[in-house]
């Protein structure tokens, strides 16, 4: 498996606060990488840096070995890395289908984007079908449950034809039945050939899905490995216990 996405000494500082501190990571083709850590560990900040929402303070980001740190968010999406938001951010006054169509029109390489309404429409319906929202295509996001909105977030991101999908707590907050469906959905996404980094607090979901898990604490990477290795790592245990205390 080749390394699709790679970060070298990625850092983000806010004033004196080191939200992300020289983190090295990589993601292989077809892999699901779990990203866990206590609250305030810098997970979402790392996502924001990778997705270009905020520029890194230092470090390198490589996609297919090509440098992409400091790019704007949209350019990174065009290159094939797309994020979802922990607190979902649908376009409220666009219908569900139109939400997805935005991704189809604007995501991915220029040549692959939907050029016509009809094409975007088809792609949108296909993706809504995939996430299970097809029947609601003409409704508005506000009419969806939280689970529905999270699915919409995923569908919209998928519409950009990403090679890497950054999922920010798509399972958290769902009831067990919904969670189970979401986990299956994420597997389905991977089976479509999309590599995934997921931030997740629901341990069952993240441990079950991830090929590999990375742990952040106070902005630093403290552990990496498969689920069992990480769970057994004393530093990880300490970080989580410390938070509970």
């Amino acid at each position, binding site marked *: 498996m080749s390394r699709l996405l790679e970060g070298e000494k990625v850092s983000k500082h806010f004033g004196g606060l080191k939200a992300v501190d020289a983190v090295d990571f990589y993601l292989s083709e077809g892999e699901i990488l779990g990203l866990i850590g206590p609250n305030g560990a810098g997970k979402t900040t790392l996502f924001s840096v990778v997705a270009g929402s905020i520029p890194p303070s230092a470090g390198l980001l490589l996609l297919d070995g090509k440098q992409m740190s400091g790019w704007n968010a949209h350019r990174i999406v065009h290159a094939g890395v797309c994020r979802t938001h922990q607190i979902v951010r649908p376009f*409220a*006054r*666009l*219908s569900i289908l139109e939400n997805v*169509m935005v991704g189809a029109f604007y995501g991915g390489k220029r040549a692959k984007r939907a050029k016509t309404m009809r094409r975007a429409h088809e792609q949108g319906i296909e993706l809504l079908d995939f996430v299970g929202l097809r029947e609601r295509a*003409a409704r508005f996001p506000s009419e969806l449950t939280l689970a529905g909105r999270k699915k919409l977030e995923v569908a919209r991101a998928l519409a950009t034809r990403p090679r890497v999908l950054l999922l920010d707590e798509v399972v958290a907050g769902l009831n067990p039945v919904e969670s189970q469906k979401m986990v299956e959905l994420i597997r389905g996404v991977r089976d479509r050939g999309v590599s995934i980094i997921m931030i997740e607090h629901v341990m069952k979901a993240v441990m079950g899905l991830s090929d590999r898990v990375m742990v952040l604490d106070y902005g630093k990477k403290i552990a990496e490995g498969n689920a069992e290795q990480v769970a057994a790592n004393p530093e990880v245990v300490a970080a989580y216990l410390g938070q509970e205390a």
Partner: protein
Amino acid sequence: MRQLTRWLPEWASPWAVVAFVFGFAVLYSLPLVISFDSYTHGIITQAFVFAAAAMAWNWLGGYVGQISFGHAAMFGVGGFLSARLLLTTSFPFWIAWIVGGLAAASYALLWGHPTLRLRGPYFAIATIGVSEATRLIATYWGDFTGGSSGISLPISEGTAKFSLYWYALYFMAFVVLLSYYLRKSRIGLGLLAIKEDVDAAQDVGVSANYYQDAVLFLSGLVVGVAGGIYASYFVFIEPGDMFGFERSISFLLMGVIGGVGTILGPVLGAFVFVILQEYLIASYPDLYLGLYGTLLIVVILFEPLGLSGLLLRIARLFGYRPRVLDITVGDTKLTAMEEPEAVEPPESDVEPARKEAKA
């Protein structure tokens, strides 16, 4: 109708095209059929020009959601440059207008590129600064604007002024098409996404900066050309009038009163504005600011879509249900009828870093 649909671009619905052609034909032939006195003729001409400018304001204010208090800057640049060209060169006037428009658009880009990164109120306030600074500099820069004495164009015979009606009509028709295109094509969807949530839009690949710049450029272009036509119509222009704050506000009021974000609302707004200005205001000149202020308050509190929203309400009383969109999925046809009454505010106010803390 089928035939028509086939060669139309995707974003143009056949009915809209028919309505457009019909409307154009009516307005085109109106002065030839009914002979207006030249006063009414002139008022309609001005309404066309302002309608175009108001639509252009609305691209920024309504489609992208960046309220501008500074469009007079482009109106003035377009007006003065085309006036200068008409005075010093032998360009046909429509070329002068377009060159003026392009200069205005470039000027818009110059200040817009940095300020469009600001959102909401910040952008609005910045535009006030831009237009007032522009006004002062333009007034001072006598070589270009004639200073506070302004410039007079060579007087044209009545016929030239008379024919401006049609030029203004072509101009407005073109802007209507562009308005329609910017809303209904795929670009429209991207602009709406930017309006709803810039960051989320960028996160699905919409180059928000590029599109905002582009919309401002187009908007400036149209407003600049409007300034040029205005200059040709009024023959004498002066910086205080062209660049004034009142001018900027008039575009805003036309857009907001007509219906922010709608396609044809600003046209309605412009016509209402011009009619109010000419007939009502002429009788009660003391009240015009208060009237516009009240309209603004009423629109914001009760009918965010302005007159367009009001028309829609009346239409609903008669059983009209606007179709938001039709979606055919396999064999089933899904139709969304209306926007839901209450739309939750987008959850976009939280800083990325703080979100983590909340979780």
